[in-house]
């Protein structure tokens, strides 16, 4: 079974530039998460999708961050314009359904390491 695919693996941009990350979840997984992990900290949930609907985006800085999940499969996360404090690893994860329905785990991709200079 293929895992969660993310691209690119690394990205360096200047502040005020734009950047986009892509995530392809495990086939058939309805739930998709985007997390931001700053060095030395735990992952912070940015947005959670159930199919192509948003479950929670309360921690997404909507003035600069946007995310979409077209057709309930692939997802993109965009930052426009980037700030220095956006330097972090952006993790995508997927699960079959929310764990409250079944004992399902979330599977994580390797992440995209973003450096804003």
């Amino acid at each position: 079974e293929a895992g969660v695919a993310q691209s690119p693996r690394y990205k360096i941009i200047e502040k005020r530039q734009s950047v986009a990350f892509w995530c392809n979840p495990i086939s058939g997984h309805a739930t998709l998460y985007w997390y931001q992990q700053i060095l030395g900290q735990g992952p912070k949930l940015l947005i959670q999708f159930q199919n192509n609907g948003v479950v929670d985006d309360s921690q997404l800085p909507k003035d600069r961050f946007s995310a979409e999940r077209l057709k309930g499969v692939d997802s993109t996360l965009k930052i426009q314009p980037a700030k220095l404090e956006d330097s972090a690893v952006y993790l995508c994860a997927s699960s079959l359904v929310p764990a409250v329905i079944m004992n399902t785990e979330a599977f994580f991709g390797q992440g995209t390491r973003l450096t804003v200079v």
Partner: protein
Amino acid sequence: SQQGEEDPQALSIQEGENATMNCSYKTSINNLQWYRQNSGRGLVHLILIRSNEREKHSGRLRVTLDTSKKSSSLLITASRAADTASYFCATEQYINNDMRFGAGTRLTVKP
């Protein structure tokens, strides 16, 4: 905001010893999960415990959950150098099923 808080932030032990990490959380949950993250890698799921369960085992892992105290513990027995990693608890919120992580415990197991 983060949901869970792990304690301690860092733990260093000798190979063969047991490691205990604690997690406290704030709101009602459906379940609590523990994940491991090796340096520079993605997170790997270790174990899930539902809100109506009190203890669960998986190999050398033992997880307890006390919903009255809003806390959980992860015990790794007979630790190995390969257990060196950061360990995170994640809670699935009752209100909307979203999954939030704590700040993690960095475990170092010395050979």
